């Protein structure tokens, strides 16, 4: 044991008694943060999620203003301008996006050959429509479908799961038997059957995606409701005379909000995927409407000669999906108190 047994002489006033303010001892060192402030700080630390949010906002803006940026209308056909490769002013001098494309195996400046003075930033399709404009129009449609489908899933799922879990008993029994059967039906089968019997279009796709999409949310919300409704703070509120409505809106929903948001963040990319999937196999949106799925389908057909037609929508859908998934991951990490250090 290494001790200092020889006591050095110290100034006597050092040994004056002092009184410690007991408030001082009870002081809480860290500033207290609300759940949402804390979650926000955590999300901000997640670089991937932050970048994703920025990219997503950028794409949202482009989806809104992109179709008006270069003066070409999305449905304006001009057969003389058909199948032009991408040409972007400025970048063209660098040897890419310079309007040079394949013609019978040879590299030719198709703009020069066809005497086109305009620039088609992402090229044109077989009908001479501007692909840049169509790409963002398609993104608009895809995002619209995804957001609406996710919102419907959320509303139905929360209502169904909430009612089932909150009222319990026989209501819960019946509602859960229905879910048990529905959950056995593969989503793919339902979506395809539904889309076949409806008139093709945006509404049909939204309905088809939402018809079983809410089940996942309803199960989560039911489980959460069951968990919270038996906890003391709910019991306390009930003892103080709160009505069901108040308990649900003041106590249950705020506690479940995090998990509902996370789940919704993962339904959006799922809906984007299903829309594109249906359009790709040819039973989704019909011409002349464009979505990311139909653009990819169109691009796929001519991939051999005009790969750019596939490339741009494929990139946009992939980046959108990545961004949504990363934001979802980030939110889950930020809102999940289990991971709290």
């Amino acid at each position, binding site marked *: 044991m290494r*001790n200092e047994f020889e*006591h050095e002489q*110290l100034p006597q006033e*050092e*040994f004056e*008694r002092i009184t410690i303010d007991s408030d001082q*001892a009870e002081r809480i060192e860290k500033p207290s943060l609300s759940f949402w402030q804390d979650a926000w700080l955590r999300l901000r630390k997640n670089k991937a999620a932050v970048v994703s949010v920025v990219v997503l906002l950028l794409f949202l803006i482009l989806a809104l203003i992109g179709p008006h940026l270069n003066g070409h209308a999305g449905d304006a056909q001009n057969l003389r301008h058909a199948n032009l490769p991408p040409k972007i002013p400025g970048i063209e001098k660098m040897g890419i996006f310079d309007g040079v494309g394949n013609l019978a195996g040879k590299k030719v400046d198709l703009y020069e050959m066809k005497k086109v003075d305009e620039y088609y930033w992402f090229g044109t399709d077989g009908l001479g429509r501007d692909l840049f404009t169509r790409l963002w129009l398609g993104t608009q449609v895809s995002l619209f479908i995804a957001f609406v489908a996710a919102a419907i899933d959320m509303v139905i799922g929360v209502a169904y799961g909430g009612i089932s879990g909150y009222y319990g008993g026989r209501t819960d029994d019946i509602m859960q038997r229905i879910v048990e059967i529905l959950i056995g039906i593969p989503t793919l089968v339902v979506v395809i059957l539904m889309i076949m019997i409806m008139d093709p279009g945006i509404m049909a796709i939204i309905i088809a995606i939402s018809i079983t999409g809410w089940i996942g949310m309803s199960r989560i919300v039911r489980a959460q409701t069951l968990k919270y409704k038996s906890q003391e703070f709910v019991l306390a509120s009930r003892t103080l005379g709160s009505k069901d409505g108040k308990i649900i809106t003041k106590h249950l929903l705020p506690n479940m909000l995090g998990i509902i948001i996370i789940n919704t963040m993962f339904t959006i990319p799922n809906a984007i995927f299903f829309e594109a999937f249906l359009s790709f196999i040819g039973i989704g949106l019909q011409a002349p409407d464009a979505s990311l799925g139909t653009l990819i389908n169109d691009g796929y057909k001519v991939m051999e000669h005009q790969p750019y037609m596939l490339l741009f929508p494929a990139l946009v859908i992939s980046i959108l999906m990545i961004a949504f998934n990363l934001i979802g991951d980030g939110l889950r990490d930020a809102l999940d108190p289990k991971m709290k*250090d």
Partner: protein
Amino acid sequence: MTKILQVKDLELSFHTFAGEVKAIRGVNFDLIKGETLAIVGESGSGKSVTTKSIMRLLPQSSAEYKNGEILFEGKDLTKVSEKTMQKIRGKDISMIFQDPMTSLNPTMTIGKQIMEPILKHQKLSKSKALEQTINLLNLVGIPNAESRYKMYPHQFSGGQRQRIVIAIALACNPKILIADEPTTALDVTIQAQILELMKEIQKKIDTSIIFITHDLGVVANVADRVAVMYGGKIVEIGTVDEIFYNPQHPYTWGLLSSMPSMDLADQKLYAIPGTPPDLLNPPKGDAFALRSEYAMKIDMERQPPFFKVSDTHYAATWLLHPQAPEVEPPAVIIERMKTFPGSRYYVEQTGGNA
């Protein structure tokens, strides 16, 4: 009095997002062969970290040994290779954890889990190892060991699981057994059984035990010596009688005063005010000063060194400095000191009661 383990000036920090947490700030103690040393203190005082650092079980990515050494059989455990450490763990030094419900692998039979260290360290044949496993299970009081070694942890109760964890720890007759709050997660009746078991085993295999707990009742029951930790440091160390009946540090006073006692039923239970120090920014002086009603000016400026009370008893408080004013400990403590020969409040017992 062979010293089997010496911890000298140990300092250890965790690197976290918030910054460097100085979890251990200069810890010194020796472990003597065959003794039970209890380390007590509240949550976050560094008692668990100290023992985990002896076993080097802290995450290598965030924990850093800043200073000091841990001497075991001539080797400094803070410096030896991971391979050497693996040979020491489970063989020379083994450990019992707090929660028996989570410390066994749920998908491995308990027999395999007990056999693992035997096969690894003793190089026995499988059948010999199995024989030893069954002996161990009998030793720790699991009935029908011959048939039950094939079972999975979920088929045992909490107390039985802790017995199994003890069997694992004893598998290679370790020289040092570290018990990290081994009874905290158990029922009171089971706690007593486990404590009895540990005492019995210690007699049988003559091992040294480091017993971590925040339960002073348990300490009185099992320990030979006690080290009191606060804010990442040992503030007082001595034999169990010295700590219980002649405590010197205000924190030890606080701990003992907050212990409910039968014969002082009418007394209000004491609670130490305030919260443990923030080890991200440890205080400059005595870490306990902010919560102490005996604080002096110097407590705010300089960390107290250890002052010798007796050959076996040391305490780190400026109150023991010859220049310090004489203070009066809480009444409960004075009551205790009255029974301890050598304390300044000792009164010769004249009656028959001990």
